[in-house]
C-alpha cells in the first residue's frame, strides 16, 4: 500500500471498519510513515474529543410529556402544536 491508498483508509480506520489484512497493512504503513500516522492520529483525536465533550443528552422531561400529549391529541384534534399551557396542564396530572 502506498500513501494514497493509506489516506483513503484513514476515516474508516478511525471508525474501526478495517479488518484482516487491510487492517494489518494500514497499521504497518502508519507505523512507518509519519505523515500518514499524523493524519490518522489527528482524525482519531477529533472524533474522540467530540465524543467526550458532546455525549448524547437525555430527552428533556418536558419534551417527553409534550410528545405524549401530541400523541393523545394531535392525531384527531388537529392541533398543530401543544402550547406551553397544555404542557403545564399535563404536568399536573398524576400518573
Amino acid at each position: 500500500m502506498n500513501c494514497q491508498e493509506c489516506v483513503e483508509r484513514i476515516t474508516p480506520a478511525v471508525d474501526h471498519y478495517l479488518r484482516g489484512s487491510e487492517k494489518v497493512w494500514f497499521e504497518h504503513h502508519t507505523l512507518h510513515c509519519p505523515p500518514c500516522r499524523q493524519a490518522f492520529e489527528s482524525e482519531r483525536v477529533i472524533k474522540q474529543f467530540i465524543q467526550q465533550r458532546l455525549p448524547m443528552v437525555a430527552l428533556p422531561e418536558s419534551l417527553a410529556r409534550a410528545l405524549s400529549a401530541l400523541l393523545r391529541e394531535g392525531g384527531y384534534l388537529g392541533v398543530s402544536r401543544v402550547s406551553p399551557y397544555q404542557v403545564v396542564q399535563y404536568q399536573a396530572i398524576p400518573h
Partner: protein
Amino acid sequence: MKTAGKTPKQTEFETEALPHADLLYNYALRMTNNAADADDLVQETFLKAFRFWDKYEKGTNIRAWLFRIMKNSYINRYRREAKEPDTVDYDEIQNFYTSIRDETADSGGAQEGSFDALLDDDVATAIAGLPEDFRTVVILCDIEGLTYEEIAEFLDCPLGTVRSRLHRGRSLLKVKLTRYAKDRGYAIEG
C-alpha cells in the same frame, strides 16, 4: 398495563416511533445548537410522523423514515441555509484524497490534549457552524454512534459519500477548534 383509551394506531406509534425521540432530539440539538429549536423540531417531526403513519412502510427502517421527516422540517425552517447549492459532492470527492495531507499540514496535527481548555459550548458552536452536509454526518456518526450503513440509508447516498463527508467534516472541525484554541491563547503554535 392495559392501553385503554388508545387507538391501535396510537399504541403502534408509541411502541415503534417514540423510542427514537432521543436520536432525533440529539440530532436536532446539535444541528440547531438551541434547545428550544430542537424541542420544536422534534415535536413537529412526531406530529407529522403520526399524521402520516399509514405512509410508513412497515418493516423498513423507522429511524430513517423519522430522520427524513425531521430533515424536511429542518430545511423548511432554515430555508436560507438549505438554499446553499448542493454541489459539494463532485469537488468533495475529487479533492478528498489529494487534500488530506495539505489539511494536516495547514492546521498542524490535532494532538491529544490540544483542545482541553475549550468549553463544551465552543465545541457545540463549532459543530453547529459546519456546512449542513458535513454537520449531519459528524453528528450521526460521532455523537449518535450510527454506522456508515445506517447513515447512508438515512441520507440515501453511497457509503463513499458518508466517508468523505465525515472526513471533511472532522477536518473542518479541527481547523475551527484549533482557531478557537489559538484565539483564546490556549494552544501553542503547531
